[in-house]
Structure formats: structure tokens, C-alpha cells
């Protein structure tokens, strides 16, 4: 069930490694001296290809920072991050930008779409920026999958919150990135719309072979993942495979209790 039917690739980049992204001894610290705050404390993590990974943790645990670093949005203080075989730590802005454009997809919590572009234009935007022609058949399939065929000409303001997030999902999928990062993609949605979006993410892993990393604090959202990583105080403290919402919730409560007693 976890293995994909076919894993689509572009341009022959990447190899056949089972790991899509790696973090090695990643430290992210702000400030210096007494005011130094360590957001990530020597984190090692492997993101498996073709898997849906959720990163959980309480506020301030460093989960968003980890995602931003993995996605090349933020720089690290020390340590290395690899996307496939490419070390992205130390890349200059120009190369990082291109890397994000060509190899990574993003879904943010809110404000995912450009208000001036319609749904279809938003979906193809990363490819437009790159000056690439979208693969028509693939695009149709993605649009079909997220169920937006009827609304491609709509502007974001004419779409509901759930529809907007689905457009964002479609955008992330359309360019066939090696990896998609989601920053609480369902954080602003009601449970029904949220379930819809999570369902699409799940299906894109199962049916399209996509690799997805998602930051969330919602146990229900996390239960859609293949694997859940728990972060606390900048360290990975636990991990769970094939979770259910109840298991996740229990584990969270556990952390909360420990956090209070310690």
C-alpha cells in the first residue's frame, strides 16, 4: 500500500535513493551569547522517498524551522542538508531559488495564491517562472485528482478556502517536484475541507508517488501520514509509523504531561 505505482521524475535528476531529503547534525540558532536561542539542536533526519511524513511538536519546538531549512527557505547555523544528492546548505540565493522552483513544491497555511492570477495560472506559475511548458497530460491528471476542472478560470477570491488550498496542492503537484513541503496546509480550514485536502495529499503519495513533508499540530492531519516525527526543544524525540489519530493524540498528551512535570 505504501509503495507507489510509478514514481514520475523529470530530467533524470536524482537517483534511485530511497531518501529524498536528509538533515545531518543541523543546528539553527538565533542570536549569540546569553540571548542565544537554539531552534534546532543537532537534528538528523531522513525523509523517505514516496512517503508522507508529518512533523509534529508543540509551539516553539522547531518544527517549522526544520521544514524551512529542509526546503531551502532558511539557512542553517551548522550541519548539512541534502536534497537527494545535492547539498543545499551553502547554496547561494540564485541556486536555491532555482532549486525551489524546479525541485520543491510548497503548500502554505494561508495566502498560497496570487490574487491577480486565476486558478490555472496559479497552478502553472512555477513552470511559467521557469519558462517551462507544463506537461498537458500530467496537468490534466493533477487537476482531475484535486477536482478543480470546473474552476480553473476562477480568481482566488472567487474560491472557498478549501478550494484555494486544493489549488495550492495542485500547484505543488503540477511541476512534479521531488518533494512537497506543507506548512500546516489545513490549519485554516474546517474539518471537512481539511479532510478533503489531506485526502488529496494522501492520494498523491499513493497514486502519484509523491514525497510529502507536512508540519502540523493537528493529530487528525498527522494520522494521514506514513510516519510522524515528534520535535521538542529542537530535537527529534520520537517517531511513529502508520499512526492513527488516537495514537498521535495520546503521544501528544504524553509529551504535554512530561513537558509540565519537567
Amino acid at each position, binding site marked *: 500500500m505504501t509503495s507507489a505505482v510509478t514514481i514520475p521524475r523529470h530530467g533524470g535528476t536524482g537517483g534511485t535513493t530511497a531518501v529524498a531529503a536528509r538533515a545531518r547534525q543541523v543546528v539553527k540558532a538565533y542570536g549569540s551569547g546569553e540571548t542565544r536561542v537554539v531552534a534546532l539542536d543537532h537534528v538528523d533526519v531522513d525523509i523517505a522517498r514516496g512517503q508522507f511524513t508529518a512533523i509534529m511538536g508543540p509551539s516553539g519546538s522547531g518544527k517549522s524551522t526544520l521544514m*524551512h531549512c529542509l526546503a531551502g*527557505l532558511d539557512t542553517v547555523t551548522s550541519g548539512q542538508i541534502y536534497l537527494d544528492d545535492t547539498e543545499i546548505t551553502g547554496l547561494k540565493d540564485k541556486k536555491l531559488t*532555482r532549486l*525551489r*522552483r524546479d525541485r520543491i513544491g510548497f503548500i502554505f497555511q494561508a495566502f498560497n495564491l496570487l490574487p491577480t492570477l486565476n486558478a490555472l495560472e496559479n497552478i502553472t506559475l512555477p513552470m511559467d517562472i521557469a*519558462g517551462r511548458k507544463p506537461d498537458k497530460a500530467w496537468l490534466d491528471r493533477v487537476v482531475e485528482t484535486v477536482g478543480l476542472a470546473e474552476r480553473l478560470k476562477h480568481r482566488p477570491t472567487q474560491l472557498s478556502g478549501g478550494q484555494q488550498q486544493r489549488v495550492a496542492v495542485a500547484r505543488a503537484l503540477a511541476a512534479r517536484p521531488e518533494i512537497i513541503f506543507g506548512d500546516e496546509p489545513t490549519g485554516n480550514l474546517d474539518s471537512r475541507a481539511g479532510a478533503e485536502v489531506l485526502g488529496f495529499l494522501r492520494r498523491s503519495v499513493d497514486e502519484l508517488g509523491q514525497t510529502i513533508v507536512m508540519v502540523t499540530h493537528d493529530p487528525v492531519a498527522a494520522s494521514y501520514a506514513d510516519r510522524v516525527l515528534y520535535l521538542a526543544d529542537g530535537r527529534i524525540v520520537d517517531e511513529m509509523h502508520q499512526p492513527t489519530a488516537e495514537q498521535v493524540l495520546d503521544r501528544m498528551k504524553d509529551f504535554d504531561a512530561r513537558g509540565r512535570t519537567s
Partner: protein
Amino acid sequence: MTVLKTSMRNFLAHKGRMALSAVAVLLSVAFVCGTLVFTDTMGTTFDKLFAATASDVTVSSKDADDGGETTAGNGKPPVIPAAVVDQVRGAQGVKSAEGTVFSTSVTVVDGDKDNLSPTSGGPTIVGSWNANDARTMEITDGAAPEGADQIMVDADTADKHDLALGDEIGVISALGTHTAKISGIADFTVTNPGAAIFFLDTATAQRTLVGESGVYTNVNVTAAAGVSDDQLKRNVLTALGTDYKVQTAKESADANKESVGDFMDVLKYAMLGFAGIAFLVGIFLIINTFSMLVAQRTREIGLMRAIGSSRKQVNRSVLIEALLLGLVGSVLGVGAGIGLAVGLMKLMGAIGMELSTSDLTVAWTTPALGLLLGVVVTVLAAYLPARRAGKISPMAALRDAGTPADAKAGRIRGLTGLVLTGAGGYTLYLAGSADKATEGSLWLGLGVVLSLIGFVVVGPVLASGVVRVLGAVLLRAFGPVGRMAERNALRNPRRTGATGAALMIGLALVACLSVVGSSMVASATEELDKVVGTDFIVQDDNGMDLTPEAVAAIRATEGLDRVTEYKWTQADFTTPDGKTSDDTAITATDPTYAVDMRMETVEGKLADAFRPDSMSVHEDYAKDHGITLGSTVDVAFEGGRTGTLTVRAVTSSEGVIDAGAMYTSIDTLARYVPADKMPLTMMVLASAKDGQKDAAYAALKQSMDRFPQFEVRDQTDYKEALKDQIGQLLNMIYGLLALAIVVAILGVVNTLALSVVERTREIGLMRAIGLSRRQLRRMIRMESVVIALFGALLGLGLGLGWGATAQQLLALEGLKVLDIPWPTIAGVFVGSAFVGLFAALVPAFRAGRMNVLNAIATE
């Protein structure tokens, strides 16, 4: 109180965003204050000069101008007999009286025959050195002139032309050229703004300037202790009777002031006019700033409303921010204005007009007016956005801030704008087809105002169409980045419209003036080709007459076929309808003028007007006074007798060259005006013998070499000079309009900078999904270019309309050819694109530097 506090905090929190608006207010206020300080300082300088140089009481000829200028048609100053001095000395309360001679109808050259006259338009004065001059001038080098071969020069002129003791100086007057060597240099103890002054001893001055001894132009009278100037004047009048002009120091100074006052008023109001345009442009910038600040703060204002602020309070809080902005901008503007005035004074110094910063005059009204204007304009401009802020509902606090679509308002606006533009267009049409210039110019003014307002109102509606077209033409080539730039420009048409409109105003004026200017050149050229039959024209560009010596030199030149002198005087005409028209201009020329200028006539031939006791009148005058061919007119020549002249030609009122002139021959004039009262020659037209044109031109230039003040031009050079003259005038106006354009550019920068702030998250998102910095910067630059080109298109369109209408209207005055200077228009358009690129520099750079993570972080 809380309202004030929130306003203060908001103002300070957004001081960066307010900066450009403050600069716009600053520039406009600075220009107003700078103009006032500059002209006031000039006024002070002249006041001091005139007050210092005038003697207690001055006696001069009745024919002299009040201001002491000595111009008369014959090139000699009006004089009074020397005996007057003794008569004045006999009057009560006179301490001393001395006769002086001076003239401004002179040209002074150095040993190389280079003109020493001021280039600033100041007068050249040659006079006798007297006790009265010694009051305000100090001999710093050498000694006062004694004897015919000595001359003293003022220190400023000596400095400017590197003159030293012993240098040769030539004084060219109507009587001939007098040469002398510099014996001394004298410096003013007050500021001399720009006159070149030369002194001779009294006998030499009399001989050189008047041609006879025993006469003076003025008697300077000094009062004995305890006698007031007014009392002294009465005493002098008692002694002299009323045959002479007697003025107190104050009267002379006032008369002098009046003559420079007119010039200064023109300067002042012209510059204030341009400041007004800058203010108008600044209004758009301020409206935009506050609109954007209000839009960005919608949620915040909604919250204020939700927790109980009244509409009025919200409204007021925005207006208070505007007040603060106005105050800050104006205070800085007043300071900058004084700096600007000092700068202008230095600039004037560079072109030969000396002004001293010690005379810097800041009337209390200047800062007061600056502050008032700056604050009032800013608050008024912020009124609309403030009202909009007041209308924000408390619900806005709960909603995601989005731009509310108000399609209805757009339709109303579009309609209003179209009606206004239509009305403006119709009015312009009326102006273009008017029969009378006075009526037409009224229509033109109204049409300009209406169409301008119409364009401003309809601008946002037009923006969507024009930007799409520009986008299709220019931006499509840039792919998705271009498309996004286009969409961004279209996003808030009101903002784009207002930003473009600010640029539109300045460019419309540029386009309009360029059309009028180039039509003037084209019309004049066409007219010259049609009318002028002479090869060469000799005249003084400052309007001085040619000296008899110079005319003789022209006549003696080899290779000339004919030489026509052109003189001008005034006369009282008594026409067949029994009316008398006083002081009417009459032109006297040699009969060959009819060949040199093919003036169109409606009746008779112009050549016949040069027969003995004959004249021509122009069409309108003939109509008004019932004159036909063969009518007689009694002409009482100034300084001469009355002659009865027969009208033998009626000249057409079409045509611009010498429009309205009435001609007679110099021989006829000489019959009625004694030789010593004959006016000098204003202009000489000369034509070469067949096939000797080039040689004659060179020979003519050669013989006029001694007289650097007179220009010799052939037809080509004449047209070129005309073109240069109009070009210079236009360049000056463009220079002043540059202020308005700079403010408009600030507006573009402002709009972009605020847009970038407003779109922080969007920019972050695009950067996150792979838009490179370069692409981002390009996107912002292209948006800027589109806005600028939008403004340019509107402005050029409007300006061409105005210019064409003005030409149609001025066709009545002879501006018959419409010439649109396409290279200028294209240049302005392309230039606007660069303006757009330039305006985007900083906003694009800042957008590129934006931190992606901060930009996308959810609050």
C-alpha cells in the same frame, strides 16, 4: 486626545511611507518660498541701490523717462541747458547742485571689439563722474577720468572682463565711437545687480553722448541741513518754473523700482505658476499615499470602529496625520526654499546678475504662506482617503483585508469623467473655431481645465484599457513576469490612474508647449519664405538702434545691391472720420522696402506708399476709421510738424511679420522732422548684387565687426536664430516643468514602494515557489514602466490636443502652420519609460532584499 495619540503613533510608525509625500510637499513649498525670497531679495537689492544712488532732488528734461532712462528715438538723451544748474543753486535750501550727463543708449567695447554690455539684460550706462556717484562708489584702483582719453569702469565689469588700468575702451553712441583708456576702477558700496557703468569727465561725456557742450541730462541737487526733500523740490520748482521734471529721491527711486518691478512680477508669477503645477501634482501623490495607508490599515481601523470609535474620530485621525505630514513637509520646505533662493542667486551670479546674500530678504509672509499652503493642500488632498477610512465598517476587523471591488463607483466615475472630457473636448473645439482670439482664449482655458479634470477622473477607467494594450505590446515578450506586472498595474486602477495622472499633467504641458513652439517656428519660417525678399538683416538683439556710423558702414560695404533702412516713430493721426489716434506707431523706410518685404495688400501697392507725402495703413485701421485709397490722414510726427499724407496702400491684416505696421518713406518723415530729432535706424535690410551673395555676406560681417552689438544674418541664420530663441524659451519652461515631473516621479516611486510593502506576502510566496530576485525586480520595473507610459500616453494625448487647439486659435494671429514635433513627442514617450525604470530602482531593490521567511510568516 486619544485620537491625536493614535494619529501621532501612526504617523511615526509609517514615517518611511510618508517620506516621499513629505518630499513632495517640501519641494512645492520650497519652490514657492524660494521664489518669494528670491524676488524679495532682488527687490531689496534694487531698493537699496536706487535709494543710495538717487540725489535728494533731481532735475531733468520733461522728455526724460521717470526712471531716469534716457532713450529717445534719435539715440541722444534729452538734455537741459547748463544755465539750469545756476538757477537751481539760487533756490532756497540748496546745499549744492551739479550737472551730470549720462546715457544708456550706448554700447561699450574693449580693445578686441568685444561687447562689454551685461549679458543679464542689465543696462550699460556711460556718464560723467560726479560727487553724487562718489557717494556710492569708491575708487579702488587708479583715478577718476580726466581728459578725453580717460575712462573709469565699475569693478564688477572690470572683473568680469579682466579689464585693467590702461586697457582700451570704445564707447559707441549715436554720435560715433569714442575711444579712451581705463584710468580708474570704482567699486559700488551697495550691491550693483548687473549694470555695466563707465565714467568720463563731464566735458567728454557731453561731447560723446550728446554732441554739444553746455548741456546736462540731470542736475543732482543736495539739500541743506534741515531741508526735507519735498521742501527742496518745492523750492526748486519755484526757482525753475514747470519747464523741467523735478523729482525727489523717493520719487526717482519709486519710478526706477516700478520699471524693474514689472520684470520681477513677471518672474515671480511665472515661477509661482510652476510651483502651483507642482502642488497640483503633489496632491495626487498625497491622495495615493493616504489611500494606500488606509487600505493597509483597514483591519486596524475596523477594530477601532468595533471597539467604539466614531466615524468622525477615524476620519479625524487620518486628517491629523495629514496635518502632521503637511507641517513637517512645509517646515522643511520653507528651509529648503531659502536655500533654493540662495542657489538661484548664485545661478544669477553665474549669468552676470550680482545679488548679495547679505540682502537676503525673508518677509514673515513667506514662511507663513509656505506653511499655510503646504498644510492646507495636504489636508485637502487627504480628505477623500480620510472619508473612505471613516466609511470602513467594524466588520472589516473580522474579514480578511481585501480590496473591495466597487464596480458601481467605477461606472459613475467613468461616466463623470467622460462627460467632463467631452465637455472639455467640445470647449476646445469651440476655441479652435472661434473667430476672435479673446473669445477663443477663454474657451481654450476652460477646455484645458475641463479636459484635464476629465482625464484625471476618467484615468482609472482608462487605465485598465491602456495598460492592457501596453501590456499586449510591451510586456507579453517577458512571459509570466510581464503578465504579472501587467496584472499588478491593473490591480488597483484608481492608484495606477492617480499615479499616471500626476505624470500626465507635466507631460501634457510639455507636449502642448512643444506643439505651439514648433508651430511658431514653422509658421514664421513659412511666412519668411513667402514675404522676405531681402538677403541680409542687421539689427541689435536687445532692441537698440543702429548708430549712424554703423549704417554708413553697411552702405559702404562692397557687393550690396540695395540697402533699406527701417525707422520707427510715433505720431498722432487725424483720420477722415474726424478722430485722432494719439501716439500711433508709424514706420519709415526706404522705398526699397517694398521689394525687401512682399507685404500683402488689400488695396493699392505698398511701393506707392513710399512716394512723397504718402503712406500705407493696415486693413483693420482702415476699416475702423473709414479710410480708403486716396484718403488723407493728418500725421503729427513726434518732435516734428504735422503733414497731410495720402493713403496709397492698405496692407492685409493676415501675416505675422511686421503685423499692423503703417509705412511711409524716410524722405517723407524727414520733411516734417528736423534732422536732430530724426529717429535712428532700428534695422537695416540689405541685398547682394546678383551672384555675389556669399561674398557680400562676408563683407557685411566684416564691416560690422567694429560693432559687436549688431547682428548680421542672412535668411538661413535668421530662421536659425528664431528657432534658437523659441527653443531657449521652451527649454526654460521645460526646466521649470521639470519640478512638476520630479514630483510625479516621486509619486511613481511612492506608489511602487507602498505596493511592494502591501504585497510583502505575495512577494514572499513567489520567491518561495521559485521566482528569482532578478525576475522579481524585473516585474516591479515593468509595472513601473507601464504606469509611467500610461501617464505619458494620457499626457501626450492631452497635450497634443491642447497644442493643436492653441494653434488653431493662434492661426487668427498668424500661427497658420500646425507642426507637431514628433521627435520631441517620441522622445518624451521613450523618456517616460526610462522614468519608470528609474522610479522602480529603489522599490525593486528593496523587494529583492525582502526576507522570504518573514514575508510568508503567518502573523
